[in-house]
């Protein structure tokens, strides 16, 4: 038996007696990744068994043994005529919309948020407006977007933009206001002024919050574009799912759902990686304290 006071790790108690200390250490390091894979395998197995025993209706929830080969073979073109959507095209369209909407949102939000934080009269005037726009669900803009811009990419980008712009503006203003006054005063007393003060002190001091804002709002943008694509912008991954529904092609629906999940997860990890690279000073000291 392992000692009662052994540090609680993710190694299950039943596994430890059998494993040599060396292997146990290695296992411990791999555990977060392993447990993640394990959880998916368990879910897929349960699903598979559920479908095989007809506890789950396999026509509504086609099991992984059906969906995974379907994805790998590349779901062919679905839909008819101008509504035709291919799998690869749908992914590219959705990703491009999210990316462009998010970047436009950032380009608008960071300067406006900065002005809101710094110029009080503008703040009095504009802040309530932004605060009113922020709680509007992005999908609510879909009818407006379609009426204004049609059912193309512009509409989707508009919806993403409206979904993230106001929240990012507020968060940028908050990030700048949260920079300690004393830090600014210290920098000023050391001779920093104007654009140097912003570039050398305010920007790096707000960078952690700004990157978190991007990461959180990527999710918002991702949700917004999918909702938009389902609610009338008839292309992209969201539309693919609706198409699957209309044709009662549940394999296509599951394909859409899994793709959304996997892509969302992968991009979030990518942003996290970029965040760690850019905020090297935070990553480094974390490494030190752990090592």
């Amino acid at each position: 038996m392992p000692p009662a006071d052994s540090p609680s790790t993710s190694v299950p108690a039943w596994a430890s007696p059998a494993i040599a200390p060396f292997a146990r250490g290695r296992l411990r390091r791999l555990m977060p990744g392993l447990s993640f894979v394990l959880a998916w395998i368990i879910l897929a197995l349960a699903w598979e068994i559920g479908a095989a025993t007809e506890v789950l209706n396999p026509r509504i929830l086609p099991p992984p043994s059906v969906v995974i080969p379907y994805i790998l073979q590349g779901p062919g073109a679905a839909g008819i005529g101008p509504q035709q959507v291919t799998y690869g095209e749908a992914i590219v369209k959705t990703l491009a919309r999210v990316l462009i909407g998010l970047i436009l949102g950032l380009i608008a939000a960071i300067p406006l948020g900065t002005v809101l934080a710094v110029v009080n009269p503008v703040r009095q005037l504009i802040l309530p407006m932004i605060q009113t726009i922020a709680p509007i669900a992005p999908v609510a803009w879909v009818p407006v977007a379609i009426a204004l811009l049609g059912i193309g990419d512009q509409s989707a980008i508009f919806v993403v933009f409206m979904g993230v712009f106001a929240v990012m503006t507020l968060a940028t203003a908050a990030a700048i206001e949260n920079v300690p006054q004393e830090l600014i005063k210290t920098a000023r007393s050391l001779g920093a002024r104007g654009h140097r003060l912003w570039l050398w002190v305010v920007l790096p001091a707000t960078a952690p919050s700004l990157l978190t804002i991007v990461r959180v709002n990527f999710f918002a943008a991702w949700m917004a574009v999918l909702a938009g694509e389902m609610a009338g912008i008839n292309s992209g991954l969201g539309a693919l799912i609706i198409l699957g529904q209309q044709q009662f092609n549940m394999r296509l629906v599951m394909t859409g759902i899994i793709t959304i999940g996997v892509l969302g997860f992968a991009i979030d990890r990518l942003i996290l990686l970029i965040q760690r690279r850019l905020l090297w000073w935070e990553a480094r000291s974390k490494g030190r304290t752990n090592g």
Partner: protein
Amino acid sequence: MAELCFEQVSKVYAGHPAVVDVDLTVPSGSFTALIGPSGCGKTTLLEIAAALIPATTGRVLLGGRPITRPGPETAIVFQHHNLFEWMTVQDNVAFGLRTQGISRHERRLRAGRLLADVGLIDHAHKLPRELSGGMRQRVAIARALVLNPQVLLMDEPFSSLDYQTRRVMQRYLLAMWHHAQATVVMVTHDLDEAIALADQIVLFSGSPGRIVETIHIPLKRPRQPEDSRLQEIRTHLRHHLEKEVALGEFTAAELEALRREGMTADL
């Protein structure tokens, strides 16, 4: 080195006077401690002297010339170290040189030399968060001294440190001060700190802050805390501070009640 002179300095924040009519001369190269209850505007005075905020009336002169904007002549250190988390110790220390447009090569050289002088060279490439509290504050002081300021302003620089570290830091500061030859003004709540370090101690009353007394301590440093001449000053300071704190803390009725109970005999 130059004399620092406050002339009739007052500061009003949104109708509330923070400091009123401060006239104070800090002789060139001397060490002055400002003591008073919280919220008596001592920090405000330092920030005015550093030209970080403007005085409502009055002015501050350095060597006869009014201070109008932050410059390399004055440096300020706060209670919190305010180090730039995203820079190494060496880059933090070199920050003042960078704003002056000094080349990277020379910045490295000068920051390195200063760090070697103060014994922090082994930590030059560490990040602020990898240092201890006392070490961070030493880096903050080194950063303030990199431009060889004539005046060093310190706002309770050691108050967030534990007692022993604070004592060590005070000795360290004395050494640095001899080295840097600057005129020092330090705000502190620690009476022992003021007595151990200062040439003159300036007592402030509470809101609005004004000077009530200036005490000169013509004793050599380092000083022995047990010195009988210091005991007298310490008692005097303690009475002043407790009286001011009581005035700020209690209402007139409470003070009257305390007096009836004989609790205010030494206030």
